[in-house]
């Protein structure tokens, strides 16, 4: 037996930062949540990988810090800093911390903002994310940076199947046309049950 994935991030990130000239980190410095967001750089595959590594590790090790940094930079004019802030907030939002800010993004025109917000709320038991996911069932635009690249309908499909006990033919549908064909049934379900739908904390699913 050996240790889990643990903390090679520290040295790794330090080297990353040094190599990118973005900080004076020594070999044992982990990027702060602030650095994880402001240093997010999509210029090449390695930088993208390192950027998500830093964000994910911050979300895991210091969710409060990342959430605070994310909230601070949510309105950043830099596209990538804003994206990192949205992503960081989506990974750290709680029912009492940051959910109001996330909810404001449910009507965003930016696809990443809208769907990351919907998925994040769905995951914390806030059903306001569900209609946004349902609305995306017929949308083929791709989210940014997903691996593999993921269109909106596929993201919504996965989230709805994961967080609800409903199907409406969605499980057997994988392409845009067939997934979109289930949308009316999902809309009907939401409209008929939106007041009674609740999050079951045991199953981690929404039920009516």
């Amino acid at each position, binding site marked *: 037996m050996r*240790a*889990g994935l643990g903390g*090679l991030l520290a040295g790794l990130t330090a080297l*990353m930062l040094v190599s990118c000239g973005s900080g004076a980190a020594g070999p044992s410095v982990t990027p702060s949540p602030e650095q994880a967001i402001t240093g997010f750089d*999509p210029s090449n595959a390695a930088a993208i990988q*390192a950027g*998500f590594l830093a964000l994910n590790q911050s979300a895991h090790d210091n969710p409060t810090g990342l959430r605070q940094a994310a909230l601070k930079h949510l309105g950043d004019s830099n596209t990538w800093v804003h994206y990192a802030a949205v992503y960081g907030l989506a990974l750290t939002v709680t029912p009492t911390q940051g959910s109001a800010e996330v909810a404001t993004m449910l009507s965003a025109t930016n696809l990443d903002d809208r769907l990351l917000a919907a998925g994040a709320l*769905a995951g914390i038991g806030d059903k306001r994310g569900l209609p946004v996911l349902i609305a995306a069932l017929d949308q083929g635009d791709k989210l940014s940076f997903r691996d*593999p690249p993921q269109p909106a309908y596929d993201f919504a499909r996965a989230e709805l199947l994961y967080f609800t006990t409903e199907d409406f033919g969605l499980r057997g549908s994988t392409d845009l046309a067939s997934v979109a064909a289930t949308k009316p049934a999902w809309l009907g379900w939401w409209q008929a049950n939106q007041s009674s739908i609740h999050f079951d904390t045991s199953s*981690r699913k929404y039920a009516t």
Partner: protein
Amino acid sequence: MRQRRPRRVALLSVITAGMIGSILIPWAAQRATAASGGGTSASANGDTVTIAVNIDICCGGTRRDPANFDSLVRDDVMQAEAVWNQALSRLPYKGCFSIRVAFSVHILTGTAAEDGYHYLYVDPTEPGRSYVQGPPVGDSTWVYLNDVGQSSLFLASMSIVTWEHEIGHLMGLQDDYQDQVVGGATVSVALPGRAGTLMDSGSSIDQNLADRLGDLAAKSGLKLPGCWAGTMNESLVVGPCTSSVHATMGIVVKADGAVAGTWTGSETAPGCRSHAPFYLGSFPISGNLVDRKFLFPSLPSMPDYPPPISIPLVSSTSAVAHLVWSAPGGSQTSDFSLTCMGC
């Protein structure tokens, strides 16, 4: 939650080299110092190559896990395995070898991972970006030597195809797309010829992926028997009618000269045969490589060429036979050609 141990320090430089660019530390130079014991391995049994991927999933039993977390993850991985195997069963490597995959999953309840297993952190609820760490450019056997610690999967937004894709990384396959920043937005662009395939953004597992898996297994040090692939084209002319058969052959030559493989024949022109030749369809063939000749007792023969059919080597990598039979009212020719793949 996650533990840290000094052992990972060696691995750190390797991952870092891959992640932040080969400019600083050449990837190949680092591999020699890599920690041993990746979660990926390959083995061969006759003409079957098995690629095994051992996966530790961290961490079951947390407060946010759905009650069925364990079975959910296992079912997803097993479905991904089934899809890979179903596709690979139709995609022989070099025309000789059947590739199959075998995924093994352990759901960890603590943080300690096992030697010989890839360690994946699986988040049950957040909408994060799933990824597996590894060298940033090109397929690599790195996963045969190292685990992919620092990798994360986000269950709630994953489909089975996402599992298939991410486990593709665990088998050493690189992405077949690139993220590009265009006008302040990112677009994922498929590499030439790869659009719609699994390591791009699609679901198709094609011959290219099968061949790359086989190449990675071979590069990992797996010793494969000699593989010969080739064709047989037969033409039978009787009066005004011509019948034609095309067949492909993929055979493995063992160290003792025993030969075994698969014949797949199809009639390309039915001509005037009263009945289809017996050697249509796919069936196993066997024989020997003796005195620089392939000898196949069960292959289609002709009156002037009693079994076994003999296909002599014309070089160390090629064997050819041109068989002609003529009789009043008709003639038949059969051309055999075999090439050693990777010799």
